[in-house]
């Protein structure tokens, strides 16, 4: 093949694809950003009050979706990762990252959206339902504030919507008959929204089906990726700092400190971390934050060992003793001498750790001790799917696959990095 398919093609391709599909929403978001600026100047208080997380999230992803391809194009020769040929790992990694960053843009519903339960629950993949739009009160006035509200309600997907009805089919005679799974609903015609004399009807499409609450599994998967990656990054960061600091202290100071810290590490290694994690979560409550912290605390031991042995090794070397005599301070020493040496084993370790943490979070959610039900999580999705094993296989299939692919990606990345840092391994 003459032209190799490179990572940056893929990145730009996916971004453009999203832009094309979600063009209207992105455009609306931009105009909303202008309105917010205007509002900030005119009515500072109201603007700040309504600038909540989902809105900022939406702004950020709409901006990034345009900026990202540009940056990728600019850096395509400078960053080696972008310039290499695509592989399964890189495709998966890219998709995950894009899920992570552009979750509000990609998903077609709020992950918590539910309505007309008996109509929508446990729908298989590729099914859809009719959406009947009811007449809403027109927001009166043409001032900036009402413009803001009108536009915001178009962009931000809420977890509820009292102005629609989901149905199998409908028939418009004297009255609007709306057919649902277990009956008919007859509404006066004038309650239904009109455009040019025709009732406004759209379809809601469920790519991967719905769960027992009638929530869109695809949207939950996309937002679940956020949670998984967030937990992964967060706890790896904690492990990293703990391992670095304690390992350095232990190796550098030696003696009593070393003895105590090493024994503590032995203690943590002498029984499976999962029990420790479950114990803490069961006793002190489980939330997103506590899961991150506890998983971070349960994974620093191997890093500690790497750092400690490396520090001890370097401490005895000549150049280190010289550096000390010259008068460099310990933290300078850490940064200048030790860090470069331990960087590659640490990075490899962290990537593997990342996979392990995502797995652990899912396992905890499966046991009911995960991040709670404030945010969708793959493990929790599998857990609840288990109750509907006989009726809705899709409830565990897609989160299960996502989980396997993510962990596979992390492991593969770790392996590749290991080969990259230690090319000796490659040729045996």
């Amino acid at each position, binding site marked *: 093949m003459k032209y190799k398919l490179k990572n940056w093609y893929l990145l730009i391709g996916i971004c453009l694809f999203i832009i094309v599909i979600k063009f209207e929403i992105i455009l609306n978001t931009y105009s909303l950003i202008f309105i917010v600026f205007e509002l900030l100047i005119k009515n500072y208080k109201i603007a700040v009050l309504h600038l909540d997380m989902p809105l900022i999230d939406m702004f950020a992803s709409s901006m990034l979706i345009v900026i990202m391809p540009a940056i990728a194009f600019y850096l395509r020769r400078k960053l080696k990762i972008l310039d290499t040929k695509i592989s399964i790992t890189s495709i998966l990694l890219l998709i995950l990252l894009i899920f992570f960053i552009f979750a509000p843009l990609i998903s077609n519903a709020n992950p918590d959206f539910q309505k007309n339960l008996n109509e929508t629950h446990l729908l298989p993949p590729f099914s859809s339902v009719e959406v009947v739009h009811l007449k809403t009160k027109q927001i009166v006035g043409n001032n900036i504030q009402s413009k803001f509200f009108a536009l915001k309600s178009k962009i931000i997907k809420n977890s509820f919507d009292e102005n629609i009805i989901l149905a199998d089919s409908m028939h418009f005679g004297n009255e609007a008959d709306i057919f649902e799974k277990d009956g008919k609903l007859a509404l006066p015609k004038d309650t239904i929204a009109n455009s040019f004399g025709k009732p406004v009807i759209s379809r809601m499409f469920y790519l991967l089906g719905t769960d027992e609450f009638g929530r869109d599994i695809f949207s939950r998967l996309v937002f679940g990726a956020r949670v998984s990656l967030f937990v992964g990054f967060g706890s790896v960061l904690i492990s990293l700092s703990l391992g670095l600091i304690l390992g350095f202290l232990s190796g550098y100071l030696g003696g009593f400190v070393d003895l105590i810290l090493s024994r503590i590490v032995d203690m943590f290694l002498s029984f499976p971390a999962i029990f420790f994690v479950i114990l803490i979560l069961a006793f002190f409550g*489980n939330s997103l934050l506590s899961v991150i912290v506890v998983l971070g605390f349960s994974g620093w031991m191997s890093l500690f060992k790497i750092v400690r042995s490396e520090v001890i090794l370097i401490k005895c070397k000549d150049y280190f003793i010289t550096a000390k005599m010259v008068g460099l301070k310990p933290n300078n020493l850490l940064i200048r001498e030790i860090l470069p040496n331990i960087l590659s084993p640490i990075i490899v370790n962290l990537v593997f750790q990342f996979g392990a943490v995502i797995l652990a979070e899912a396992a905890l959610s499966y046991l009911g*001790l995960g991040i709670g039900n404030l945010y969708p999580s793959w493990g929790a999705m599998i857990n609840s799917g288990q109750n509907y094993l006989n009726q809705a296989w899709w409830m565990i299939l897609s989160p299960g696959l996502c989980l396997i692919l993510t962990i596979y990606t992390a492991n593969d990345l770790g392996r590749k990095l290991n080969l990259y840092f230690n090319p000796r391994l490659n040729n045996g």
Partner: protein
Amino acid sequence: MQILKKINFFGYIVFILLIVILQSCSNNFNKHPNAIIIGISSDIESTNPLFSYTVNEGDISELLYMSLIQYKWDEKSGELIDEPMLAKDWSWNSDSSSVTLDLRNDVYWSDGVQFTAEDVVFSFDLYSDPIVQSSRYGTFKTFEADTTLHIDINRTFEVESPFKLRINFKKNIPPDLIDLTVPLIPKHIFQNIDRKNLITIEKQIKPVTDGPFYLAEWQKNQAIILKSNERSFLHKPSGAKEIIFKVVPDYLSRITQLREGEIDLTEDIKTEDLKQLSGKKYLQLMPIKGREYDYLAWNNIDPESYKKDNKIVPNKIFGDEKVREALTYAINRNEILHEFLKDQGELAVGPIAPIFKNAIDTLLKPLQFNPKKAAKILADEGWQDINKTGVLEKNGMKFSFSLFIPSGNPLREFAATIIKNDLKEIGVDVKIETLEPQVFFERMFKHEFDAWMAGWSVAIPLDMKSYWYSDLKKTPMNFSCYQNKNADKIIMKIDSEKNKNIKNHLYKELEQIIYKDNPVTFLYWINNNVMYNKRIKDIKISPLGAVYHAWNWTLNN
């Protein structure tokens, strides 16, 4: 060559697998024509009624040990009827302060020793001794007791002959034989054992029983096998020769085994499985109604000031009964009932279950889902969304709170999600927080939450004081800290009232007050779905339990 050998090796494995599969296929369908097999979710800790803390332990000890009298549930009145068991007959004295019992003289313990009145006295002594920590400790309400709640044996029991016993009750209480339904244990076995260590060494004592069944074998984590005691006067020749409690921890396997005829009866079947199971002709569904309900509790008092100095101050949000009423209107309970419970239950109106036919006020109807009305009530109370954030406010305070639920209960997780969305529609911001059950219940007992969802089962006979009396020191189970002077008065009257009709009238009055106050939002009564194989005949499933008086069951294969 080597690969070929290995393929051979794999061949062996496949062969073994095939045998196993065929073997397990031919395994099914009942090999126990004379046994009833009951599927339970976890092993018991004890067969001794002294230490039967759980439902299954109670069921088993009831088959092994008899009591003075037994209860029967009267469907029509929703009341309990006393029936003879070890006591053949009894007579009240003129002011109903004592009862004289005629005991059976044909009952023998399994080691051949005869049952006498001494066993009765000893059993009550042991049950109420604080050092024993028996399951009935503290539950005896009709006997004189000392400060440690140990029954005053000498004053309460007068043994007139080995088979005649007089029991004196506490003064000024309504006559009631409730405390005589306790399963009795043999004195000659337990009298020489140090009471302090009884709880830890009880398992080493070989059970000596007098009931219609005896313990044949207890395979840990597998099964408890009871065999019928032909010497018992309750023995039925047409009854089951064996009752086997089979431990099947996994719910799905329990259902599969019920469907395949490997077990004959199991409880707590989830509603989504009822459809496939009811297709089987040999299975019969028999829900136990009206024992358990879920509720959405609003803390009536402010948790912080209660925690600080036990001060009772109305809750900032939920202290107002109008607000609580609005919240009840705003929640679509029917949707949860219909969607999750598949209508295996009914909307709850108050704390008295519909099964108590004489006590319940049938004129009270559950508040219907009506978000518009809810919004209006809240607006009248001053809760309005002035700054259009979608969340109501009053005096600068947002209407937003955390709803706590215990983890591991799919119904509550389901309901919480629905409730959260329902309330969001009327501008109430709810954050669901799931807590591990132990932590959850500890904090609930300390009244630390503002709002939470939990469940409770009603005691039979009815007990209102423990749950709805204002004084939080005396009623640790008034979780939502309901405060109402009128209700208190009625509750005190109920406890001392001797006339049944007046008592039932008082219950209705209390219900009306609670209906108006909405101390909690009563969600729904949840059926306990029991299913059994139709080869069991003469089975009566009452609110007293699924496995109740199982010696009356007969078998028809």
